């Protein structure tokens, strides 16, 4: 049976490097995905994810478990992303490949999905990426944490140090902007209905 985050954290705090590396293995992909969606660049997202774990390792003794380990990691990641955005003085980019790799696409296809549907899904994903890149950082962050990481409103509020109502407002505003952007890009509400 796999150990919980809390158990692994306790072992890591006692100097067990393997336990910490188990935590890294468990969380590296969500942390990378968070960084990628916030800053939009693969290589920079990788650097941010790596730095997140190094900082977490360094500060592990000071982690008292008030929040979940994952929330703590998210906070470190978001701080690093914020630093990156300030340092680069630019908004996140919507990084999309130029061409479409048919072989790669075929690997992603669900058994009932045709190639046309798959290409359409890819294009929709790209449109979403562009729409998200246009959002202000605070709205984008809330949507990412809610949509892709499944945090509750309360967890997001604690993570971002803001009132619950602010989280909901940002979420509503952000979703509304994305909806308009997708509409302007020609993505209709029933684009996925076949």
């Amino acid at each position: 049976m796999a150990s919980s985050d809390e158990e692994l954290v306790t072992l890591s705090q006692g100097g067990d490097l393997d336990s910490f590396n188990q935590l890294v293995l468990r969380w590296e992909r969500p942390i990378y995905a968070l960084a990628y969606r916030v800053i939009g660049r693969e290589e920079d997202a990788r650097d941010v994810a790596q730095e997140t774990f190094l900082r977490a390792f360094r500060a592990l003794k000071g982690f008292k478990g008030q929040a979940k380990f994952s929330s703590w990691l998210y906070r470190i990641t978001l701080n690093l992303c914020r630093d990156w955005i300030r340092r680069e003085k630019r908004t996140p980019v919507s990084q999309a490949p130029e061409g479409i790799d048919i072989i790669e696409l075929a690997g992603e296809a669900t058994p009932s999905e045709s190639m046309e549907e798959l290409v359409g899904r890819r294009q929709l994903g790209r449109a979403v990426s562009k729409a998200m890149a246009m959002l202000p950082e605070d709205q984008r962050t809330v949507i990412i944490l809610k949509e892709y990481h499944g945090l509750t409103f309360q967890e997001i509020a604690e993570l971002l140090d803001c009132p619950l109502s602010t989280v909901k407002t940002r979420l509503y505003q952000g979703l509304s902007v994305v909806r308009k952007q997708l509409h302007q890009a020609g993505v209709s509400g029933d684009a996925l209905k076949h």
Partner: protein
Amino acid sequence: MMCDSKELIVGYVYDELAIGERREFDAHLAICADCRLEIEELQATRTHLALWAPPVPELSFRVIGGGAPAAPALPQQSRFVPAFAFAAAAVIVLAVAAAIANVEVRYAPDGVTVRTGWARSGAPPDAQVAERTSTGAPQMVEASRSGDFAALDRRLSQIEAALGEAPPAATLQAASTSRMSDAEILRRVRQIVGDAEARQETAVARRMLDVVRDFERQRRTDVALIQQGIGQYQGLTNTEIAQNRDMLNQLVRAASSRQEK
């Protein structure tokens, strides 16, 4: 009123309303087409958002190194070392190696002289001695180094003499044995250092002499080839000049014979 509450709408879309709130909002939706439409559109937007997938890179991060995580130096050790650090390290290593090898390249009228060996003020090998006596300017440098070596030698002798002096009677036998031992060690260390240096310098000098010899041989061959080429070119040119001269003489002769007629 419910239509204006964005918090309620968002709470409903993400299913985070309290049971009472949800029941109340459901009742509102039954009579409010605008709110129903808005909820539908937000849910469609959420469906679209799900299509945005990040790339799937090979990550496999690992923190390496031992010790407790609180140790501040550990994460630093775990960092990736930038390329310039490797370059700087390489430069330092090269500098140290050059300093140890003490490579010296000199150009003199009689050829190239290359010397190496750490602590060159030590006992010189045969090859080095030969170079000193056969060159001009290097002799001065070597003379001063010989002076350094002599000074060092004197200093070592003084230390040995001091160590070899008779001790007070109270410390007699054991101390005497110890002093002899130290002096012997010192002599042996000097001998080992001198031998190692001699071997190193001789080997490198031989290698460099071979290189210089090969270089000189190749240079002479090249010069001979160039001279041969120039000679051929000059031969061709002289032939052409002679032909032109003959042609000109013939013309002059023809012209003067016409004038005579």
